[in-house]
């Protein structure tokens, strides 16, 4: 299936590009909607044929994996949902992978969010990932969802010295003083690892500025591709690792699949999305090349004539 799918998709796309190249090199306009159609096809075909590739983790991704592996079981990991629908397809696989990995390793997981949408996303993660896949883990003991608070960096500025001043209860109104997981936690400084998943404002950058750097707390990031390059100056001193876009998510998924047999059958949206992604990248590059060729061709013709 994989091979036939690849062949069919590539043939359709290559023929289309040839047509486009001939048309534009002979100086005829191609309508915008035809370009749109190409893009739609380039993404749809690999999806329908279910084309996937194998992934290998790069150092900036493996650093996060190794950090979670090296912490002793029972360490406290905080995962912040700092994204909304506009980034969800890219970064939701990351937050799911982090939750799976941390819980499988026996860590305590605290979920929160600096985006209001984080309230819905963390609730979904508990419902769809933690409850069905880790039925033995108990809310308030092994994991807790404390939800969203308004105020962006203002929230971080409080919880870096005192959690309870900002968060009196979890999302279900349970007092934080009465839950086992929060025993001995005063502030963010008691976390063994913080992970911010998101790519806008507030996001990884605010976590570095207002939590990780002043508190000297290890921070990992999962970011939408658009803003991932801007976080590199923090790597590796202020940010131990970074998943950039869907490729980062796919690499992380493949890494946990490799090390944990229990995740052999887990859904891997990140890896699945890399098939369409690859073809779409090819199309974009081909468009740039064809567009430039016809541009210079037309320019030369003008000079000659």
């Amino acid at each position, binding site marked *: 299936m994989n091979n036939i799918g690849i062949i069919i998709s590539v043939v359709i796309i290559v023929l289309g590009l040839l047509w486009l190249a001939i048309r534009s090199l002979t100086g005829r306009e191609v309508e915008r909607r035809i370009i749109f159609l190409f893009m739609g096809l380039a993404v749809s075909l690999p999806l329908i044929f279910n084309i996937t590739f194998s992934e290998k983790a790069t150092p900036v991704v493996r650093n996060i994996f190794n950090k979670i592996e090296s912490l002793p079981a029972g360490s406290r990991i905080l995962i912040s949902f700092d994204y909304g629908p506009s980034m969800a397809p890219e970064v939701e696989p990351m937050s799911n992978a982090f939750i799976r990995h941390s819980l499988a390793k026996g860590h305590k997981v605290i979920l929160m969010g600096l985006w209001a949408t984080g309230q819905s996303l963390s609730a979904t993660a508990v419902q769809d990932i933690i409850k069905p896949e880790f039925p033995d883990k108990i809310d308030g003991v092994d994991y807790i969802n404390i939800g969203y608070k308004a105020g962006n960096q203002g929230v971080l500025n409080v919880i870096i010295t005192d959690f309870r001043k900002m968060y009196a209860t979890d999302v279900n109104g349970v007092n934080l003083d009465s839950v086992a997981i929060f025993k001995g936690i005063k502030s963010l400084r008691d976390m063994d690892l913080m992970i911010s998943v998101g790519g806008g404002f507030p996001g990884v950058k605010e976590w570095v*500025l207002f939590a990780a750097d002043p508190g000297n707390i290890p921070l990992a990031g999962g970011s939408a591709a658009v803003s991932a390059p801007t976080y590199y100056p923090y790597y590796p001193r202020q940010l131990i690792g970074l998943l950039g876009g869907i490729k980062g998510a796919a690499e992380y998924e493949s890494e946990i699949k490799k090390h944990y047999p229990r995740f052999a059958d887990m859904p891997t949206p990140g890896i699945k999305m890399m098939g369409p992604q690859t073809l779409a990248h090819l199309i974009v590059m081909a468009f740039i090349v064809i567009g430039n060729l016809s541009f210079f061709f037309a320019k030369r013709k003008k000079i000659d004539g």
Partner: protein
Amino acid sequence: MDKSRRISIMILAGTIILFIISWIIKSNALQTSGMEGSLAIRDAFLITLAAFLTLAIFSFLYKDNPYYKFAEHLFVGVSAAYWMCVGFWSTFVGNFIPKVSTSLSEFFKVPPKGFEIHYFIPLILGIMLLMRLSSKAGWLSRWSLAFIVGTTAGLNLIRYLRTDFITQVSNTFVPLLVDWKGIGPFFSDFSLSASGQAVMTLANWVIFVGVFSGLIYFFFSKEHKGFFGGASRVGIWVLMVTFGASFGYTVMGRVSLLVGRLTFLFSDWLGLVN
């Protein structure tokens, strides 16, 4: 009735019929997969709704049209209300109510934290902010705006100075020769692993030259001529590579979002792929 109006009514009717057909088929599909009756009908409705809204937005690619406008306006309304509700329950009820009223705390079922009078400051400033909606008392909102601006400025000043300025400068103190063992070993290993000293050395040179010339490019007090001009030229090239990287990543991100939506249409709605 003119022709274009007739066509648009026909399209609307067609859309509604398609919606209902999709709803019925999806309910059946969900029920055969073992979902309980009423729940299947509800979920089938929701999935179909989401799919039609998705398609309505995509229809903008053909041209601007009423379906797109409908979806866009719906989005604006729903998202504003979403943020309001979550903000109200999480922070207003969660952080403000417990500090000011025991009976209200009981009503909202949040643990009271003891009365603190200075918590009325944010309430007053908040109400002043809402005065913006009135044209007469609008100037009062400046007080709250001043508080917001002051907090942001105070929070940002130290943190940006420390993390984005000072630490970035000191992180650039890189040795320009790494683990020097002589010319031979230097040229023998161009692998990307940390042991590749040539690669490390090269990387450090690029970081040093790149940051330095980039700063020169953004240095406006001296005209960019001579050495300064050359350095700022190098600076712009490094910045161009940076933008190239951002460009590549942005393309990647945009495509991912499209893949995400098409995955929803193909698998959740149409059930073409699992």
